[in-house]
């Protein structure tokens, strides 16, 4: 039962709720300190990139793209890791990290096409698709923290079959519309 994440870039508005929702869910640094730091930093298991605006022929091209770990089927990070610290969860296909084995060599970061592995304070952090929330009914079908927080419904997490059905339905709906905004 492979789980996957689908990012609907036409819907994302760049509100960055997902990033903070993820920080909260995974208790990620930075922590509040006194006096506050002007430039605190920490790992971000989901990052959102702004593309544009570019203006061509009076048309604005601009979108926002959230990028977590995509939990590749044939994950290059797993192959690259010299200590077999990265592995697939059997039930879900989620790429996970065994922190005890990780030596912080960053090979996974080199080979990941999305820059997903995060290194901070001597540790590697990776999106785990909120594996601990699977089966919990707290968000009525919205599984991960980022999916739950997103006001634009730009993030969908589910089995590949569920995501396939969702994208199919969207395409069918769109076919009837002249221009989708």
């Amino acid at each position, binding site marked *: 039962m492979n789980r996957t994440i689908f990012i609907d870039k036409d819907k994302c508005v*760049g509100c960055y709720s997902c990033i903070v929702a993820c*920080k*909260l869910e995974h208790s990620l640094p930075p922590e509040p300190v006194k006096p*506050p730091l002007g430039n605190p930093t920490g790992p971000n298991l989901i990052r959102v990139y702004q593309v544009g605006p570019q203006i061509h022929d009076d048309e604005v091209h601009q979108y926002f793209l959230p990028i977590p770990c995509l939990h590749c089927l044939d994950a290059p990070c797993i192959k690259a890791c010299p200590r077999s610290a990265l592995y697939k969860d059997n039930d879900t296909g989620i790429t996970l990290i065994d922190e005890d084995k990780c030596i912080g060599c960053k090979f996974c970061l080199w080979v990941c096409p999305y820059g997903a592995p995060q290194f901070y304070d001597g540790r590697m952090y990776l999106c785990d698709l909120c594996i601990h929330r699977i089966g919990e009914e707290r*968000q009525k079908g919205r599984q991960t923290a980022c999916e*739950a927080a997103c006001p*634009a419904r730009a993030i969908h997490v589910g089995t590949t079959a569920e995501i396939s059905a969702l994208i199919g339905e969207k395409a069918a709906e769109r076919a009837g519309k002249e221009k989708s905004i």
Partner: protein
Amino acid sequence: MQPDKAVITTTCKSCHGGCGVLATVENGKITHIEGNPDSSTRGTMCAKGLASFQEVYNPNRILYPMKRKGDRGEGKWERISWEEALETVAGKIKGSIKKYGAGSVAICQGTGRGYNRYTFRFARSIGTPNIGVPADFCYGPRLAVFGTTVGGRLYCDYHGWGGEYPKTQISWGKQLEITNADGEMAVWFLNSLDKAEHLILIDPRATRLAGRADLWLQVRPGTDAALALGMLNVIINEGLYDRDFVQNWTYGFEKLRERVQEYPPAKVAEITWIPADKIIKAARILATEKPGCIQIGESLEAGNNSIQTLRAIVCLMAVTGNIERPGSMINWVPPDTGPLEEFAMEVPAPEEPAIGADQFKLLSSPPMAMAHMHTIFKQLREGASQIRVMHLQGTNPLVAYPNTKEVKEGLLNAEFLSAADLYMSPTVEYADIVLPAAHWLESDDIHDMHPRFIIGAIHKVVDPPGEAWPDNKIYNELGKRLAPEYWFDNVEEMLNYQLRKANITWKEFTGMGFLAKMGKEQPYYKYKTDYWQKGGGFATNTGKVELYSTVMEKLGYDPLPYYLEPNESPYSTPELAKEYPFILSTGGRSPYYFHSQYRQVPWLRERQPYPIVQIHPETAGSLGIKNGDWVWIETPRGKIKQVAEVFAGIDPGVVVAQASWWYPEDPGPDHGIWKSSANVLTRNDPPFDPAMGSATFRALLCKIYKVEDE
């Protein structure tokens, strides 16, 4: 042993708020928060609300009441008891009232935060008309214009309860998708947008929805009234208006028709820098692709023509019949409690006029009469103010009000300053008495930021740190000392009282989470019923939507909307424009901050450590400015620096700086306001908006140049 664990339902007010929240508490500590899927906001939350988690346990919080020891701003404090703090504040207020009259006390708060009704009740209960809020440039104009023109506040109908969603949506000087929920929430807006056919974005910048909009009107800052009047010109002259609605339910259409003849699209194109064909297209879409609604931003209020700008926009809604029909703009029926602002209104308003009332008659009109803060600061600065004592409840004037230098001179001339806040802001640093305020996760209250169809229970999740108190408790305890007849034994009784019309108690309400009129309970077309007037009509003098405003006429203002060139512009002040060639808006916002808040919250500050000024690539290139460079922005009032974002979605002649920056990590008392706060640049001189007193934040002139020494 199982840890003691509970999930508590509450309501966020990290912005104006309203998102339903589930907070998990384990052994007395919050361990998690997330959106409540069973609330109207469906489990979603924004970055600011989620990061609240880092506010509850933030070591920078103010923990105890304190009194100043050294000189003002010296940063020397002595911890005192609540008793001493309250006695001191109440004593100062009492003394000032006795010596100089009730009007010598100003009760101030910042952006509306759901405790407005306590601020207003408190001020009225002690008899002062001088309620000091940023109303002239934030939401006050919308309130005044909706009230006088339509008879009540209008909200976008994003809900489909009447069987229709808006077909045409306009987002005007607003980014509801990332910030500043003024009654409507981002998730409602974005959900309804999926069902819309047209999105028209009106903004000087290609903001986040620009890629999705079918039309982007890149308006010159400060010229929105001209645009609205130009659209009205097209709609009326092309006969595209809603004849039935106009004939039966509006007042003064012929006069408006005459007025808009002064604004043909070609002329409006020159004023606004928007090509005429786009203005025409937008007008036709709004008038023919119905229903439609307009999300109106605060940007339209922060200038010298705020009232007439909004009047023109409401006229657009009216002539297109986009009022009270499903999917258009609605005046919601409140929940069974009735509008909670009655809690403030029921206390008789003082006879004495508020400061500025002689000039800005809409600002100081009942029911919500307010003082003109820019006049108060000016009088204080000149040493001639009626105001002696200022109580500041969650407000940061040294960051929020225009012309920081002069605001500071004024504020420091107040004889006594008390301030309640979560953190030592630049303003709190100058207080004589500091009161520690509780966060919403530490408070019991009723969320009703904008009177609408829903109120929510703000349910205390954990105890506040140290001795912090919720805002409502601070007001209640001060109130008991000064005007006991209006105040309550305790907060719970005060909440019970506010809920009484719905026949529920506070305890029952917390179990319900929210109280609303939604779905079939929310009627449309109320003007066709006895809801406002027997036999039908709106709650205005004429019973109609007043295109021609009888209220404005009576107050001596132009009853019809018109355009006024901004105080500073290449056209109104060409000489000044030689030295300061760029149009400056200080309206930049980010999803991480709400006005001057949250720079000490790491999950947010990490996302954006410094303020950003957006500059067109050509302009940046000609000035040798690269993306990420620190840039000086200078106006006749002063100069600040922000980080350049070289941004194609802006006119080469316009720059947009971010508002409300200070650096909590920088040394007090001023915490870096002079470095980057955009209000060092803004203008507090007249002419203000004639009826509202609005100062100018969005259409100024500036020069920019690279910071060379960093």
